[in-house]
């Protein structure tokens, strides 16, 4: 039961508190490793936070480990807690330092493991003693190392010194490190390791004997608390965060970029599918509505026409004419909706851009003249395009009508065309103001309710867009030229014989 009696106080132990002096060294930028390595409390910390954990062959008590943000942060937290400070017996600390010096020197010469790993193992070999256990300090150390989740190689090197070397190796530690630590203990451990499995290791023991002759003198680590330590630790934490962030932020940023790309792709795909589904639903609605709505409209219109034909009072006849006109308007909306959601299959043919623009201009000239608006065709390209002429003309007309709505008397509308790669771009620009900000996103949405007046009202722009797409093209609005709508369509080589 003696084991239990020694392990119980060990289990109840909080973290072995680092000395104030080494904590101060930790807050230097960069931290001073030579001051830190003498303090078992801080070395424990360093090992605890050496993630990802290098093994006994490569471990180095260097800046990279000392700058882990968790290290200074936990150290700062420990300042306010009841912790076990250094053992009062400086002999134990002296023993640790001697073991550390000897083990790291052996490691450096023999190359069996990392000298820093050997240093840590040596310094922590009396861990149980640091924490107040005496006879059973090895089992106390084993429990503490496990509880504090130190790397496996240090747990096995220090915690299983009472097992023969081969048995300890079987647990998965680092053999070279185990051999060196054991050789150091055999040489300078004296009677402090009563349960230690003493096996000779010829060459190592001989070297240890030699090196032990002139080990450096014991250096005491001052443990008095320093008043400004906490803020310094917190600053060091922040600094370490910033530094380590740079190394892992870059790959994370790449990962985020990748995810954002994937999201954008998925979003685009989703948007397209959503748009197609909306168009399909709208098309279905419009098909049904055409029949269901147009019959009652015809009845309303027919009755109004009949009454109007017998109406002598011009005022009443005017009201009846309004009814007739409005039924036509509803019909046009239904027609437009169908045209937008499922335009008729395009019958592509080769058309001269110039003649298409000319026809649109002629179609709209009278209306524009009536409104006092100038329409000019500044056709810069003598190209041909391959598309359904009627649909293209309708699309351009809608763009021009959209401009007519936005331009006041005395304004102008300019139609231009140019080739860009394998496309012809027909642009309609006007002297009006651009679309209202809240309507910009919905320019090509039919029935968007935000367009109360002016540009983009009704189904003109959506139909132009749908017809352009139906002919392998597109209609775009350019925010940098807010009154310019550009219709692009597939360019076609000039035909040999003359076309319309």
């Amino acid at each position: 039961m003696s084991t239990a009696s020694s392990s119980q106080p060990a289990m109840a132990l909080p973290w072995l508190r680092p000395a104030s002096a080494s904590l101060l060294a930790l807050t230097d930028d960069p931290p001073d490793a030579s001051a830190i390595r003498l303090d078992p409390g801080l070395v424990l910390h360093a090992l605890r936070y050496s993630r990802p954990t290098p093994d006994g062959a490569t471990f180095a008590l260097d800046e990279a480990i000392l700058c882990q943000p968790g290290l200074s942060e936990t150290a700062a937290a420990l300042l306010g807690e009841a912790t076990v400070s250094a053992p009062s017996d400086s002999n134990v600390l002296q023993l640790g330092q001697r073991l550390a010096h000897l083990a790291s020197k052996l490691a450096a010469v023999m190359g069996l493991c990392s000298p820093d790993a050997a240093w840590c193992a040596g310094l922590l070999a009396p861990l149980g003693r640091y924490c107040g256990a005496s006879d059973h300090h090895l089992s106390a150390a084993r429990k503490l190392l496990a509880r504090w989740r130190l790397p496996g190689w240090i747990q096995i090197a220090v915690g299983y010194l009472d097992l023969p070397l081969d048995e300890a190796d079987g647990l998965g530690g680092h053999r070279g490190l185990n051999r060196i630590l054991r050789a150091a203990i055999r040489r300078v451990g004296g009677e402090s390791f009563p349960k230690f499995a003493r096996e000779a290791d010829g060459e190592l023991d001989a070297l240890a004997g030699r090196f032990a002759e002139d080990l450096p003198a014991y250096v005491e680590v001052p443990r008095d608390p320093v008043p400004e330590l906490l803020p310094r630790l917190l600053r060091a934490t922040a600094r370490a965060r910033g530094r380590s962030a740079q190394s892992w932020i870059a790959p994370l940023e790449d990962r985020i970029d990748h995810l954002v790309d994937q999201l954008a792709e998925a979003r685009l795909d989703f948007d397209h599918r959503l748009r197609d589904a909306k168009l399909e639903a709208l098309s279905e609605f419009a098909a049904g509505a055409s029949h269901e709505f147009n019959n009652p409209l015809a009845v309303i219109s027919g009755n109004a026409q009949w009454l109007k034909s017998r109406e002598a009072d011009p005022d009443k006849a005017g009201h009846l004419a309004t009814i007739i006109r409005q039924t036509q308007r509803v019909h046009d909306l239904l027609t437009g909706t169908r045209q937008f959601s499922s335009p008729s299959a395009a019958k592509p043919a080769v058309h001269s851009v110039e003649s298409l623009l000319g026809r649109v201009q002629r179609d709209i000239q009278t209306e524009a003249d009536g409104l006092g608006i100038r329409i000019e065709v500044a056709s810069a390209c003598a190209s041909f395009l391959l598309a359904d002429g009627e649909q293209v003309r309708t699309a351009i007309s809608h763009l021009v009508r959209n401009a007519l709505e936005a331009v006041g008397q005395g304004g102008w509308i300019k139609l231009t065309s140019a080739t860009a790669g394998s496309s012809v771009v027909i642009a309609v620009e006007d002297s009006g103001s651009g679309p209202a900000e809240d309507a910009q996103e919905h320019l090509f949405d039919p029935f968007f309710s935000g367009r109360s007046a002016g540009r983009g009202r009704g189904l003109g722009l959506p139909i132009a867009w749908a017809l352009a797409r139906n002919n392998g093209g597109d209609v775009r609005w350019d925010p940098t030229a807010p009154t310019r709508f550009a219709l692009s369509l597939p360019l076609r080589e000039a035909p040999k014989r003359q076309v319309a």
Partner: protein
Amino acid sequence: MKTVFTTGEAAKICKVSQQTIIRCFDNGQLKGFRVPGSKFRRIPRESLYRFMRDNQIPTDALESGKRKVLLVDDDAELVEVTARLLEDDGRFEVKIAANGFDAGMMVKEYRPDIMLLDVMLPDINGKEVCMRVRSDASLEEVRIICISGMVEDDKIQELRLAGADDFERKPFDVEILIDKMCRLLDMETAAVA
């Protein structure tokens, strides 16, 4: 009331081909005259009436002097107002069929000059009606205007291929509809008072 007819008008009234009228005119069966200074044949009303009576051709078309319209639509209120609008014009006599089956029966009995045919009928669709009418050689002279709320160009083209002569959308302006009817029936487009 019209007092003199062209050979084309006489052919429509008698429901025979213009060639038949010209042959009968030329061999003296159908009396008439030529327009002075040209070769155009003209047939006075009484001469045409006698010719029709002698040849057992029903004379009601000539008696009323009105063109016969068969209006085919299942929407009772629409049919009512359309019929009234057409009759108000004064040149048309209108009968009504509410479905494709009735339309098929009545087109043979009533022998209309023109059918105004709703495309969406409760039983068979308008395209089918067009094709059945066109498959009967004796109904060759019947003109057909399809009326529908649907608007796709390719659907309209299908109806034309099935034998429709023209197409009008719902809701329609009755003046435009009558203009189309007049053009198909070789009539003056403006209503005769």
